[in-house]
Structure formats: C-alpha cells, structure tokens
C-alpha cells in the first residue's frame, strides 16, 4: 500500500471519447478517464496497449485524433493545442533517458534554462540531492551508468517542479537499488509537493507499491480503473484478475 499523500477530488485530467490513430490504425480509444490532482495513477498493460501513446498525449506532445483531453479545464483536441505555459506544467521521464552531451549539472539545469531561469543553482543542487548524485554533478552525462542516467533524467524533470510527472517504465532496465531510489524520489515528490504522478509499468509488484489507483489498458482501451486495493483484491474484470494473478505473460 502506498504511503503517499492521499489525493483530493479536484480533477487534473479529464479524457472524453479520446482516440488516437496512426496511419488509419487506432491505437487508443478511451471513452472516459479522469485523473485527480495529487494522486499516483499506475497504468499497466502489455506492450502495444497504448500506454506510452497515452503518456505522450497527457504531456501534450501529440494531440488526440478525436475527442479532447482537459487539463485543469484547458483542452487539448485535434484542432486545439495547449498553450506552452500549460504544457510546461507537465513533464515526462522516459524508459530510455537521452541526456545532452554536457555535465550532469548542465543536464539538470536545461529545463530551467528553457524557461529563462538563470539563478537555478539552489534548485539544481536540491534535485541532485534528491536522486543522490551530488558527487557526480560535474561528470559528463555520457559516462554515467544506466541507473545514474535515469536518476539524472528524473532530477531534470523534478527540478522543474511540475504539476504532473509522467513516467514511462522508468525502472524497466534498472537494478533493485536504483529502482528503490527512483520510487522513493517520485513518492517523495508526490507526498511533499502534491505532484500528480502517472506511472507506466509492466511490474505488478511496483504497481502495488506505488499506486493510489491503477488502470489496465488492453488494445488501447481502459479495461478497469480502480483504487489500488480494489484493483488488486477484488478486480471486476476477468482480464484484470488474470493480470493480478500474473497470468498475462509480457
């Protein structure tokens, strides 16, 4: 069970009749999905279920093909883009972090520079501390291990103090030590700052550890979306039950 702060009832995202198509192939078809402010939502499902596509749309990097995503009332539709200011309140940590050919510190400062914030030493230092990388601040990012690189990617996202942090299988290739560090940092971010978290994972145990609510996606559709305890203990859909029992092999 998560130890994170319990979310309020204020809606962060409201998705209605949202679809996404690539070359005529529908990869996402969500009738309704609401994400509350300050909660940790974990998206689970097999590869190709549409989880990453959904994250890109929640980060407003891609518009829906039809329907609308409302973020605190601001609409992202096929013909309506979200203003830059709103887009900058959301950020993503990816499964494979791509860092700039600069120092660790410069990578973490990058997002703040994009926003024109020059005096960012304190925030950068704080972000380095959060992911335990103070000793590597001046090291070239390309010399880092996979786990360290992912922690830099998390720090460069958290330093922006986003309202929403999206994570696309951020611990998929990491050792248990780095997995623990990243989970703790994200949980802390949610608990202390009330950041809304949407975390994609294949790992049912990780979903149990982190989630307030869990959604199972299959073939671009939300099969079940429920409180973590209900999702794992009393699943309503047989496919969810199969997933919880580990019968779906990824």
């Amino acid at each position: 069970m998560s130890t994170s702060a319990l979310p309020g009832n204020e809606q962060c995202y409201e998705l209605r009749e949202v679809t996404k198509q690539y070359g005529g192939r529908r990869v996402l078809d969500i009738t309704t999905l609401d994400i509350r402010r300050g909660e940790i939502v974990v998206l689970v499902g097999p590869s190709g279920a549409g989880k990453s596509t959904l994250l890109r749309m929640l980060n407003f990097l891609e518009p829906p093909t039809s329907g609308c995503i409302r973020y605190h009332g601001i609409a992202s539709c096929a013909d309506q883009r979200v203003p830059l200011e709103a887009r900058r309140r959301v950020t993503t940590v990816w499964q494979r972090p791509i860092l700039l050919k600069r120092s660790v510190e410069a990578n973490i400062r990058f997002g703040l520079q994009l926003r024109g914030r020059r005096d960012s030493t304190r925030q950068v230092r704080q972000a380095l501390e959060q992911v335990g990388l103070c000793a590597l601040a001046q090291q070239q990012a390309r010399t880092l291990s996979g786990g360290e690189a992912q922690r830099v990617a998390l720090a460069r996202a958290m330093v922006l103090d986003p309202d929403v942090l999206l994570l696309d299988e951020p611990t998929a290739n990491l050792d248990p030590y780095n997995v623990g560090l990243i989970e703790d940092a994200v949980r802390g971010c949610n608990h202390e700052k009330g950041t809304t978290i949407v975390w994609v994972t294949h790992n049912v145990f990780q979903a149990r550890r982190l989630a307030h609510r869990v959604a199972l996606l299959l073939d671009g559709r939300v099969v079940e979306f429920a409180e973590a305890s209900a999702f794992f203990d009393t699943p309503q859909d047989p496919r969810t039950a199969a997933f919880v029992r580990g019968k779906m092999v990824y």
Partner: protein
Amino acid sequence: MSGDPALFEIVWLSLQVSGVALLISTTVGIPIGAALAMSRFTGRRLLIVLLYTGMGFPPVVVGLFVYLMLSHSGPLGSLNSALIPALFTPGAMVVAQSIIAFPLVAGFTMTAVLGVDPGLRLQIQSLGATRWQTALTVLVEARIGVIVAMIAGFGGIISEVGAVMLVGGNVEGSTRVLTTAIVLETRKGDFELAIALGLILIGITFLINIAMLRLQGRTTEI
C-alpha cells in the same frame, strides 16, 4: 619573398574572400541543413538529392554560372545594382565561393543532425522546449558534425581555383589569390615561387583545421 607586400596582399585577400564566403554559406547552409534533417515535407527528398549533387558539383561550372549571371549581358549584371558585385572583383569571387561551399556546409550539417538520437527531440519537448529551442538544442548536440561541415566548406573554397579564376580574373592587386597566383607563377616557369605559395596555402589550411579541431575538442568537454 619574405616581407613582400604583394604576397601579403594575396594571402590576405585569399583569407578575406574565403572567410566571407564561408560566413555566408554557414549562415545559410546550417539552418537549411538542420531544417532538412528535422522536417518532413513534400519535395524534401528532391532537395536532398539536389544538395548531394551540389556537393559534388565541379567548381568551375559554378564559376561559369556566376560569370554568366554577373556579366553585363547577364540577368543580374544587366541590373546595374550596387547590391550585385561586378565581374573581376572580390565580391564576384565571394559569390562563387559561397555557392560552392553552401551544399558542403548544408549537406554535412544535415548528416550531423540526422546522427543525433531521434528520441532526443521528444524528450527535449517534454521538458518544455519550444520548436525553436528544440531545433537549436539538437543543432548544439550535433556541433562536432557542424564544425566538420564548416571545415569541409572552407577546405572546398580556399583550395579552389577554377571558379575564382573565371569570375575574379586573377587581376594583380585586386583579385589575385593564392590558388590563381600559383597557376600564374607555374605558367611563368617560376616554380620556386609557385611551390612557396603552395606551401603557404597548405599551411593556412593546416592551421585552420587545427583551430577547428581544438574548438571541436573544447565543445566535447562542455
């Protein structure tokens, strides 16, 4: 030949003409190369084929094209505009060299930008970058390749002789540069001077490459 003011004039003019031409081709070529690498639009493939063709285009043909354009009866020369340089002036040489260097700079820049991990753009955007900030960041990531593009462009024009001979005319004290002076001295049979000029040309190219490589080394350490 040491201390010969005519020689210094030739060296200085060579650097001026090729330097300005490189500046122009870089200013135009880097954004176009980056745009071709990062954008998808109708006709992009055709433009890339034309660019690659331009990279292997004989400079003397470029010289002929510029000559025809700038001559009194040509479409640009007949305009008698102060903005259009006359034939047999350093300005005409700059035009020819800019055209020669442009596809090299743009083509190598495009290749360098295409070499940057395509996933980087999405990750930069997710951190809140605008389109321009994304493009600039990707270009900075490709900086080593962009420097190579500039070296290739400069190498292509400082050592070029056909086009500058055609549009510059090798006029003493006005449009004579190192390469055209070497041709002239060889024809006159003054091999000693021709070799000396050749060594200066090689030396300049060498020094500029060293400077660029030092810059490249510095940028990788940022």
